[in-house]
């Protein structure tokens, strides 16, 4: 039997080229960390997202410090004046890892109480990023908020891209009248200013919706606008791919049009789609931020990066409590990471580049 050395598969080649792009790899690494933390938000966050204590309104960030062999958390006492807290000297509590605390659920299913770190004492709060006006830990809310903000990007892309790919594939494959009708529809949707459409669509829904309903609605609205652009590009690629001989070969073995589109044409667009998807995720994240920022998105007390930023609308708050801008920094990092990764993927998918 002839032994052949297995050549690299297309994916292996792609990976090899991607690995050489350090910025893209860094972006990818940051995203992996962000998504892992979001997945285990309940465990990493020392408090719950709705754990409020008005005694700590606008408490400044509290960082543990090294004392001897331990990490200890200092205590602050209310000072003279509202929302002013002063360090109490020589009053600390050691910081524990894997400590019992508030109840939460692993992946929303398995109840648990173990947290990554904490003091176990309400008088010694660990506010890594300070507290908001209700005395809620901004760091914890940031993590819980990332569950919504980060997943909205992925789910939105999944929805709008699969929809856009099928529609675009059908449009390009059948061409003719089908194509004309679908493309005019796409242009109609693309010509509507997205933000107004979002807000007016949102206005048609009742105000007292639960958070998960709002979450679904945001995704549906954003995807409803997002599929058209994707469909148009895929349609163009399909027009060229349908003339390929392997499509004729697939027709010649009696394959149905829908399966030819899904099995033979669309997989050939994946190298483009993966790049486009990575570069489009920020659009969905920002979409949620905009809606929540305007107060029509995720509602309090649930946390999302957008509604956390609502507090930053107030310039007084911004001047005195700059840590309220933390979600903005998180958005910035996430969007940048997605763009770096997307650029790297695009270069790696381009076989003409070195």
């Amino acid at each position, binding site marked *: *039997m*002839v*032994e*052949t050395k297995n*050549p690299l*598969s*297309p994916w292996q080649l792609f990976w090899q080229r991607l690995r050489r792009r350090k910025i893209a790899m860094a972006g990818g690494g940051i995203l992996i960390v962000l998504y892992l933390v979001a997945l285990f938000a309940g465990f990493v966050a020392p408090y719950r997202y709705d754990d409020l204590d008005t005694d700590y309104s606008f408490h400044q960030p509290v960082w543990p410090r090294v004392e001897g062999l331990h990490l200890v958390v200092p205590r602050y006492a209310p000072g003279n004046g509202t929302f002013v807290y002063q360090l109490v000297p020589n009053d600390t509590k050691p910081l524990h890892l894997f400590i019992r605390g508030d109840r939460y659920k692993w992946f929303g299913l398995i109840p648990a109480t173990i947290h990554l770190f904490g003091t176990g004492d309400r008088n010694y709060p660990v506010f890594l990023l300070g507290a908001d006006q209700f005395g809620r830990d901004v760091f914890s809310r940031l993590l819980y908020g990332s569950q919504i903000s980060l997943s909205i990007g992925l789910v939105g892309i999944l929805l709008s891209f699969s929809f856009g790919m099928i529609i675009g594939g059908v449009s390009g494959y059948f061409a*003719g009248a089908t194509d004309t009708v679908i493309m005019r529809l796409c242009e109609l949707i693309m010509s509507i200013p997205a933000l107004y459409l979002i807000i007016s669509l949102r206005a048609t829904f009742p105000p007292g919706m639960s958070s998960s309903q709002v979450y679904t609605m945001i995704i549906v609205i954003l995807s409803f606008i997002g599929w058209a652009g994707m469909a148009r590009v895929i349609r163009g690629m399909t027009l060229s791919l349908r003339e*390929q*001989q*392997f499509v*004729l*070969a*697939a*027709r*010649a*073995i*009696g*394959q*149905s049009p829908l399966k030819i589109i899904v*099995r*033979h044409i669309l*997989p*050939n667009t*994946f190298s483009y789609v993966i790049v486009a998807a990575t570069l489009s995720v920020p659009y969905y994240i920002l979409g949620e931020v905009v809606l929540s920022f305007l107060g029509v998105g995720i509602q309090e007390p649930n946390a999302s990066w957008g509604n956390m930023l609502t507090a930053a609308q107030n310039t007084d708050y911004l001047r005195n409590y700059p840590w309220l801008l933390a979600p903005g920094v998180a958005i910035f990092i996430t969007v940048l990471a997605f763009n770096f990764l997307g650029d790297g993927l695009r270069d790696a998918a381009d076989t003409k580049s070195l």
Partner: protein
Amino acid sequence: MNLLDIRNLKLDFGTGADVMRAVDGISFTIGAGETVCLVGESGCGKTVTALSIARLVPAPPANYVGGEILLNGRDVLKMSNGELRSIRGGVVSYVFQEPGASLNPVFRVGNQIRESLKLHKPDKATNAEVIRLLKLVGIPAPESRIRNYPFELSGGMQQRVMIAMALASEPKLLVADEPTTALDVTIQAQILELLHGLKQRLGMAILLITHNLGIVGDMADRVAVMYAGQIVELAPAKDLLRRPLHPYTKALMNAVPKLAGDADRLSAIPGNVPRIGNFPPGCRFAPRCPIAKSECSEKIPELVEVEPGRWVRCPFWQQTTKPV
């Protein structure tokens, strides 16, 4: 009853003023287990004729104007989409010219063969069957080949995979559209030998499209020579090669370079193939024909049976032509 009986097939491209007739009144038959060659220059309508057998020419832009394509006695031109899908692969399979382009670049070859099995032999869509097919077409180490992507195979191997795909559904008729044009001569011989052997083992009919007269002698039982959308000569292969009757066939055979003798120049047929939609009136070969007479440009001659089994579209076929 013949396996395939094409009667007076006419096919247009485009509509209205831009209409171009690519196939103009083609008729021929293929019996079960028979090998028929379709010979002609590029653009004469060979491929369109072959694709029409399973109605694979997309309409629009094509337009099946008239005629019948009886496959197993049923008219392909009147079939529903569902019926068409079951005969495609089920009764007639195709092997195309560019094996590299006929395989989907993003799928492993094993999966592509399995796709054909799933459609027509769902209970046999197994790895073992795929390996058996690859063995049948002479691919070494098929167990490891099924995991290869098309680009990892040589042209000859790719064409073998295509043939395995075509055979998967056990068709009655294999249409091979210039299956060896993209391959070098050694591989060409191997592939033709493979097709010949498979035909004898599996008892299927073959419609072989080629512009290579050398292949005709090796493979064909009968030959149809096409020129500008029409059949100009139809004859048993041996007779045609030994004694061509139509001036075009004669010129075509004359154009094959011979090793014997001391010819310095390659002989060619003067002029060009007329463009589709711009055919001369009367006999379409007349402008290039060495024995053309004035009446040739007036009326299209009929394809007539001049000897048993030999059909020619030229009233002056008995006239000898000087080699050009």
